[in-house]
């Protein structure tokens, strides 16, 4: 079966393009092919939507069942329907970490960098592809959770519509929040290069830290709460400020989370560019 003819390509000489160089556009196409050609991507994204909608539906149904005891002035129906995002942030973090750590786990990174040795290009293309996919899926999860949740609460005069104050911002914010959590994990993945380590770090930073903060004395909490990544970031998908909360406003809080993600990405890029692969 040994065919050892290489000639066709050599004759035609049609590859690669005569001018230019392998660049960002090529890397984007390559990374898009990569992310859509593994099953884990689909499973994770499906899980994200299902979990967000499912938990949001449970929370909304719960609120609806005790609607009489709820004051519509303080109740945030949008936030209630988006309750699944608390778990969704962990799922998108897993995918964010895997986007880069799976290359190290499988050894694929060595092949990737020996066809495109300009590492900044690879890192950026991977980040952009993942950012777009996580934002689109995050928006789908957020809007679906919102509509399902509001439908469950609509019979009890608790529900809101996209036209109500801050609601559209909050639902879009839900998608942005998920994407930012994913990017944070992507950066951690580039720094740690191990799937388990990166996922643990991301969950620690996003979830465990938010829980641990409750054990601090109240006076400390008031100063520290707003700097906790997930707590700060979740302000963008709330429509009402809970009384006594010492948090940044919606976009300010999101900026804090995005800042953490940016720091992780920058450190990740430096590691990715300078370390031996």
């Amino acid at each position, binding site marked *: *079966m*040994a*065919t*050892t*003819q*290489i*000639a*066709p*390509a*050599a004759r035609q*000489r*049609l*590859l*690669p*393009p005569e001018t*230019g*160089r*392998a660049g960002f556009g*090529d*890397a984007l*196409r*390559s*990374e898009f*092919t*990569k992310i859509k*050609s*593994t*099953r*884990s991507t689909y499973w994770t994204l499906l899980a994200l939507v299902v979990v967000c909608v499912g938990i949001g539906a449970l929370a909304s149904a719960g609120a609806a069942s005790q609607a009489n005891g709820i004051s519509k002035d303080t109740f945030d129906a949008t936030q209630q329907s988006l309750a699944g995002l608390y778990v969704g942030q962990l799922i998108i973090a897993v995918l964010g970490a895997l986007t880069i750590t*799976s*290359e190290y786990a*499988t*050894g*694929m*990174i*060595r*092949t*990737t*960098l*020996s*066809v*495109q*040795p*300009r*590492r900044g290009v690879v890192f950026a293309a991977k980040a952009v592809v993942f950012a777009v996919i996580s934002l689109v899926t995050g928006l789908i999860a957020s809007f679906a959770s919102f509509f399902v949740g509001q439908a469950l609460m609509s019979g009890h005069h608790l529900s809101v519509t996209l036209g109500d104050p801050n609601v559209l911002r909050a639902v879009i914010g839900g998608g942005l929040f998920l994407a930012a959590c994913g990017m944070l994990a992507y950066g951690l993945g580039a720094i740690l290069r191990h799937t388990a380590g990166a996922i643990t770090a991301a969950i620690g930073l996003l979830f465990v830290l938010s829980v641990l903060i409750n054990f601090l004395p109240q006076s400390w909490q008031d100063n520290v709460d707003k700097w906790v990544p997930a707590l700060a970031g979740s302000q963008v998908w709330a429509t009402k400020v809970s009384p006594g909360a010492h948090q940044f406003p919606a976009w300010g809080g999101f900026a804090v989370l995005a800042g953490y993600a940016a720091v992780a990405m920058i450190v990740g890029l430096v590691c990715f560019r*300078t370390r*031996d*692969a």
Partner: protein
Amino acid sequence: MIEARGLTKRFGDKLAVDQLTFTVEPGRITGFLGPNGAGKTTTMRMILGLDRPTHGSVTVHGKEFAKLAYPMHEMGALLDAKAVHGGRSAYNHLLCLAQSNGLPRARVGEVLELVGLTEVAKKRSKGFSLGMGQRLGIAAALLGDPAILMFDEPVNGLDPEGILWIRNLMKALAGEGRTIFVSSHLMSEMENTADHLLVIGRGRLIADCSVAEFIERNSVQSVRVRTSKPEILAGLIVAAGGTTVPGAGGALVAQGLPVDQIGDLAFENGIRLHELAPTQASLEEAFMELTADSVEFHAHAPGQRDAGAASTDRMHPTGVA
């Protein structure tokens, strides 16, 4: 053309590659030979920019690899056939690589055909045998129609048919005017395929010459003699400038003197000879001899566990043979 100048890589306090300077000339097969752990893979990783040299530099077609416009068109490399995401199909694996260098999608089908993987193109590479994985790696290296091909131990672990396929492929690629840079720890593998040899041991360049030159320079001519008075003859050979070691069956193996001179010595001194035969050390033995001091880990022969350090550098390392 690949040019290394003073290429050095240090991992902690271990010097993996030490001041390598060499040129891989275009249009021929250059064998990169050395025992396991000699620094072959590290050198190749530095050529690709996967490892950053501690000192020195290496260029591909006059440029740092990362500065080439279309790296896949200049050089295709297969360092490790397992460096793929097993969950991805062979086709998608090659497609994502092709896209990174702006290569047409049709090229993926061509290289799959070339290595004989067309039928399993849609299968996930996780289930591939060693030989199929190797073919996939070679397909990836060929995608960009590169002028240089670099293979790290391409026949390792393959069955005889696979080995033959790779040998023929390398010869065919070289026949098309491509530059082949291929590493091996087996001299016998290079003997039949390479035009030129770079031999390294413990990160240092030991030899940089043609295969013919290497054979001439390193295969030591020795003479096997059997006589009733080996001690006397040995003394005469040493006095004449040769060396002797005891051989099998009570014979004497002499080096450094031509066979005629040994015969004459025996005749002039009235020593009766039972056997006088010139022997040529095989290339494998020459390679072992040359790299014996540079083998990283010596294996002990069975029963010699306690022989200790004193004898280790004379022992041929079975572990790397």
